[in-house]
């Protein structure tokens, strides 16, 4: 009897292993990690910013849809966005209205949720068509933000808009970027303390990265902080107290570069910003150094591929940490920072948790910038680890790309162990749900010529699946125990965001169009629905005007990973889309271009 039970449990375990590969048994009651209350207020059932809250949890306290009933989830309504490029945005829900921002030409659709998603108004900002030519990775937009009666968003050509949420009338419009230099804007602005925070894209064009704060009421410039150049431009002053010696010194944004190279050095801010209202500090990641060829820019290339803590009122830097000094692999550090208070070494610490592009899960003290831990959450052979004394990443010399030859099997590849698509944190399980990649690459470098408005790369890249052959992973990471609780391997790269709910569910989508709900405690697949096009958007959930819980996602494949479909690229050239196409040759046979909002609910 007992024997049979063991065998049966072995079979069950095997089945479980096939479904989800658990690192340890199901995590029960959480681990003491939680988002600080000031940055993660009680849930009001709305979704007013892409990351849900300033702590960037992407967690909803709604639990009507849960593990027991999610299998009955049904389509409530859908809406065609009339756009067939990569849909990376999170829809916004404010009161009984929903707002969707499309890829270029960046239409804003306002839908009435009380009337089945009926169109109320559409805003067409008419960005300059030429901006499409300087968008590195499809013409995506990652969403808008609602604040104080207005929807704030940016167009691809770099205009920031404030429009009235009620009627779509323009309140103000401010141009912040210059497409002639290769600057675009793809990020979702963050609004806090009356400021609209927005940064540029264009790290593949040798632009100079910046983060800009506009006055939310008037659209007037409050401050701009560059990521390269003299301290005065970077907004480094007396407040600046970096934890590590490598970040101390005058004008490192000039001195850590060859002469003049900082002017075309990248360090763009195109990802996520978190904000801690308790200390009035924002946290901003900076992008890769330009050009990709590292030999054209000896030095640490401050302040690229790192994270700044800044005073939101003035933009003055408080600290900086550089996760990839002298970036070798296009490893932007723009990924999300989740604000958590959690036990570290026996005492509660106020931290940032950052799933880095270089494959390390960083836990950083958000007051000081000290790295408390950095553990690999994906396969890495390009670095040996992070030296916690100096803060430096320890590179593997033979993986550093060299001029005159192709360096093979560099892991993770250029988009990193994880790219822009954001994780979600559930306080109920204490787990961070990280949608990410398992890709490696061959990379050769040649001298790049700087020509304004054209790519500044000097690199030839070819990507392919990493060890195991799967290209995507959803990892449930326990930041306190510093290891994965379980993971789900996905054939295609995961390019969608994750959503965690109080129903102990995690929602995400795959590039072949499957929208999935899995058990937040075990990773077991509980529900999935095949959508028209691949999913690279950010799922959200909200309480509808009728009091019921809804889950929404945009489908529409594209982005860097899906450009082979949205841009109809040639799979015969391995270097198409900066080498991503080589890993995606099968995608055109698995999905098609599209653009549609899907909203799901339990049947009444």
């Amino acid at each position, binding site marked *: 009897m007992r024997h049979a039970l063991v065998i049966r449990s072995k079979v069950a375990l095997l089945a479980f292993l096939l479904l989800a590969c658990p690192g340890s048994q199901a995590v029960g009651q959480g681990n003491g990690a939680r988002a600080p209350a000031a940055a993660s207020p009680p849930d009001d059932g709305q979704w007013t910013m892409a990351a849900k809250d300033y702590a960037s949890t992407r967690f909803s306290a709604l639990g009507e849809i849960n593990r027991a009933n999610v299998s009955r989830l049904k389509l409530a309504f859908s809406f065609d966005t009339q756009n067939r490029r990569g849909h990376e945005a999170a829809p916004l829900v404010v009161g009984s209205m929903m707002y969707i921002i499309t890829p270029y030409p960046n239409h804003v659709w306002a839908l009435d949720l009380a009337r089945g998603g009926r169109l109320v108004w559409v805003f067409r900002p008419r960005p300059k*068509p*030429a*901006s*499409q*030519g*300087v*968008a*590195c*990775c499809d013409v995506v937009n990652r969403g808008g933000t609602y604040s104080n009666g207005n929807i704030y968003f940016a167009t691809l050509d770099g205009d920031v808009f404030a429009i009235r949420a009620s009627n779509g009338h323009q309140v103000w419009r401010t141009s912040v970027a210059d497409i002639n230099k290769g600057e675009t804007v793809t990020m979702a602005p963050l609004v806090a303390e009356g400021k609209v925070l927005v940064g540029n894209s264009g790290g*593949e064009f040798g632009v100079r990265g910046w983060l800009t704060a506009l006055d939310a009421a008037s659209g007037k410039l409050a401050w701009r902080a560059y990521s390269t150049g003299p301290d005065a431009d970077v907004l480094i002053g007396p407040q600046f107290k970096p934890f590590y010696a490598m970040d101390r010194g005058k004008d490192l944004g000039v001195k850590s570069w060859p002469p003049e190279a900082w002017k075309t050095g990248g360090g763009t801010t195109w990802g996520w910003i978190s904000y801690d209202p308790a200390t009035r500090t924002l946290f901003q990641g900076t992008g890769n150094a330009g050009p990709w060829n590292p030999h054209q820019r000896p030095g640490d290339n401050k302040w690229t591929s790192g994270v700044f803590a800044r005073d939101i009122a003035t933009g003055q830097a408080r600290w900086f940490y550089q996760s990839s000094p002298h970036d070798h692999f296009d490893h932007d550090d723009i990924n999300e920072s989740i604000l958590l208070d959690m036990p570290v070494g026996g005492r509660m610490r106020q931290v940032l948790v950052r799933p880095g592009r270089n494959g390390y899960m960083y836990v950083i003290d958000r007051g000081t910038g000290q790295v408390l831990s950095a553990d690999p959450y994906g396969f890495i052979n390009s670095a040996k680890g992070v030296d916690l004394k100096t803060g430096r990443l320890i590179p593997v010399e033979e993986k550093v790309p060299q001029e*005159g*030859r*192709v360096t093979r099997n560099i892991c993770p590849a250029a988009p990193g162990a994880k790219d822009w698509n954001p994780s979600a944190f559930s306080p109920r399980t204490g787990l961070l749900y990280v949608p990410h990649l398992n890709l490696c690459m*061959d990379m*050769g470098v*040649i001298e*790049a*010529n700087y*020509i304004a*408005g*054209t*790519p*500044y*790369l000097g690199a*030839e*890249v*070819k990507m392919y699946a990493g060890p195991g052959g799967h290209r995507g992973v959803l990892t449930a990471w326990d930041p306190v125990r510093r290891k994965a609780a379980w993971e789900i391997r996905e054939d295609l790269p995961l390019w969608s965001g994750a959503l965690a709910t109080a129903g102990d569910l995690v929602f995400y989508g795959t590039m072949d169009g499957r929208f999935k709900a899995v058990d937040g405690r075990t990773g077991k697949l509980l529900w999935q629905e095949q959508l028209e096009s691949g999913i690279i958007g950010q799922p959200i959930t909200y309480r509808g005007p009728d009091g019921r819980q809804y889950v929404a996602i945009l489908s529409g494949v594209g982005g860097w990973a899906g*450009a082979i479909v949205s*841009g*109809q*690229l*040639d*799979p*015969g*050239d*391995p*270097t*198409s*889309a*900066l*080498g991503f*196409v080589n890993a995606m040759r099968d995608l*055109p*046979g698995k999905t098609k271009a599209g653009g549609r909002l899907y909203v799901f609910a339990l049947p009444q």
Partner: protein
Amino acid sequence: MSSRSPNKLARIGLAGAALLALGACDREERDTSRQPKPETISLASSDPRAKEYENSSFHISQGQRYYSWMNCSGCHALAGGGGMGPPLSDDEWRYGGRMEDIVQTILKGRPNGMPAFEGRITEQQAWQLAAFVRSLSAQPRQDVLPGRSDDISNAEPQTLEERRPQQSESNTTLPSAEKD
């Protein structure tokens, strides 16, 4: 023993021949017998310069260098597969696929993001670039194609590449394969 040695010798000889044959596989060969691909719409140029540039190995080789130097490859990829810019390896030409159209596109730019290179390159260089661009969709004669590029490359030399199906063909193959 002795009766087996010729056999052994023969085997060694065979193995040697096989090794030689394998070694020969590494040699770069070009098939000059292949014909230029038919064009779905007539892209015959009335400009007398078109033939001059398209039939010149030197001009196409020069165009290949400029393709890398002027950062064309950053948007359109090494073998023209595309990325930020549209693919150049298919038979879809948004702004015309004749040599003089491509030269215009390169020099003057196009509204959806193609920058103007006038002032950065000469007209002759633009014609050389256009000849190389045409070679990406296998329009010129095979015997004028450049071999390896000047730099290390993650893409096959054009002379070794299987010619890719035209866009219009690949569009029809996918759905029918699904029906099977």
